[in-house]
């Protein structure tokens, strides 16, 4: 460790000042806009919550807000369920196969999200693969409208974020003591009890990390709802874009920005709490 403070500050400050000037200050001003009274003809100013009450009094905005929360929650839960199954299967492979399969799971993360989302148009569209198959099998007569729906957004988000959950759970399962499951089995636990009482508590931290990544990622995704939801099925990010690009309503955009940031931070804190609270219980017991 070097002690020279002036030297250290000279090295670190350019980056910090840059991030503050280009990012932190503009973002904070933008967020504060949602709490200000607009100044009209020199009258107004001061702080108010009216933009927030206005925002939540609109039923469209309520729908979009609840849809964003709902999709975030469903994508997180489903990716956790699939993630556990996939992570179990992967850690039981031999080392070479494990490396290859993990590579295949990570591969989509390197492909542009625009390309990954675009593919679902080919699959879910009116003449897409799913509709072709359904009609050929006689399940439906007319093409189903899957694209531009919440279902399409759900599928797109799940595909986008599932790898993050799987990777988090793989490392959690690998760090679990090897004899925990056989021990529980010998003591007479069934497989449901093994998962609920042994695996889940021991991998809780990995689940929390994966869950936070998937949930905040889903809340703040733009490309998926923009391409697969269209202009009718909005999420908060696409609503924010419309407020700016179509309505020029910057106050509403600031309100949405504030809601998005609060939800991401709240999810982070809440999930961390869940993880540490459980650990304390275990340590005490």
């Amino acid at each position, binding site marked *: 460790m070097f002690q020279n403070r002036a030297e250290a500050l000279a090295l670190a400050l350019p980056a910090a000042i840059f991030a503050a000037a*280009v990012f932190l200050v503009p973002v904070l001003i933008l967020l504060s806009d949602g709490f200000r009274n607009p100044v009209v003809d020199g009258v107004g100013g001061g702080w108010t919550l009216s933009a927030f009450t206005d925002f939540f009094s609109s039923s469209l905005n309520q729908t979009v807000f609840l849809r964003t929360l709902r999709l975030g929650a469903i994508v997180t839960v489903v990716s956790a369920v699939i993630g556990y199954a996939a992570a179990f299967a992967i850690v039981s492979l031999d080392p070479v196969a494990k490396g290859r399969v993990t590579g295949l799971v990570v591969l989509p993360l390197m492909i542009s999200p625009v390309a990954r989302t675009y593919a679902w148009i080919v699959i879910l569209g009116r003449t897409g693969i799913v509709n072709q198959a359904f009609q050929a099998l006689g399940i439906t007569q007319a093409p189903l409208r899957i694209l531009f729906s919440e279902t399409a957004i759900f599928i797109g988000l799940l595909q986008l974020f599932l790898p993050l959950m799987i990777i988090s759970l793989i490392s959690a399962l690998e760090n679990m003591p090897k004899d925990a499951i056989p021990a529980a089995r010998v003591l007479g636990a069934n497989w449901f009890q093994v998962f609920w009482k042994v695996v889940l508590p021991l991998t809780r931290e990995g689940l929390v990390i994966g869950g936070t990544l998937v949930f905040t990622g889903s809340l*703040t995704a733009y490309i998926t709802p923009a391409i697969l939801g269209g202009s009718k099925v909005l999420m908060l990010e696409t609503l*924010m874009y419309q407020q700016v690009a179509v309505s020029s309503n910057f106050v509403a955009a600031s309100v949405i920005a504030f809601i998005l940031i609060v939800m991401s931070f709240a999810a982070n804190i809440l999930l961390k709490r869940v993880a540490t609270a459980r650990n304390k219980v275990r340590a005490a017991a």
Partner: protein
Amino acid sequence: MMPNSLGRNLFIPLTLFLVIAFLIGPFLIIVAASFSAGDTLAFPPQGFSLRWIAKVFTVESFRASFGMSLFLAIGGTAAALVLGIPASYALSRYKLPGAEVIRTVVSAPIIVPGIIVGLALLRYIVVPFGVGISLALFLAHTALVLPYAVRVVSASLDNLRSDIEEAAVLLGSSRTGAFFRVVLPNIRGGILSAFILGFVTSFNQVPVSLFLSGPGVRTLPIDMIAYMEIVFDPSVAALSALLAFLSIGIVFAAERFLGFSRYV
């Protein structure tokens, strides 16, 4: 780990097949669709041709926005490293007052949704200071890559024993000389990894650039979204496939030659 050997024999391959089909399948479909001879995007592709792959290179706006994205990814990442390497060095080697504050400020752009960063820049940097869109995009992408640069370079600095450079200083080298002759060669792999991670992040970034586009100034992903809303031909599929192979190629090369995953 599974209930019995029969369950295990079925469960593992079936799960892996379904999950990987779900994750990789759509990409394979895009690749197949881009070789179609038909006029609209469809799967299975109608016939085989290279016309859509050829068309990608003739679309004027794709060429311009590809150039823009390439400039942002290379320039923005380089700028982030120029700011990030000294900051990481100070954070890992010095007793720095307010180190946690500096670390938080520098890593903050990763936490805040990109669309908010883009709008904030438009409203409070571009408009009041008359900054051009290209410069604003450059600043935004630099800020976006900075957290990755600091994280990856810090990790490789933490892996390097600090007594080597202290020895160099004791033996008469200046602090700066020790940095360039001892530290820098040893964290080369980390810096290159940070560069590749930053490049891919910047190149694929959409929300930050959403509000920062003007006439003729657009990043490639934004241009692709705009194009696919108007034209439903397989050229976006062809472009997506080409870009995907490009980034997969870069990451694979990096993994092979640098052991990329050690740093990320």
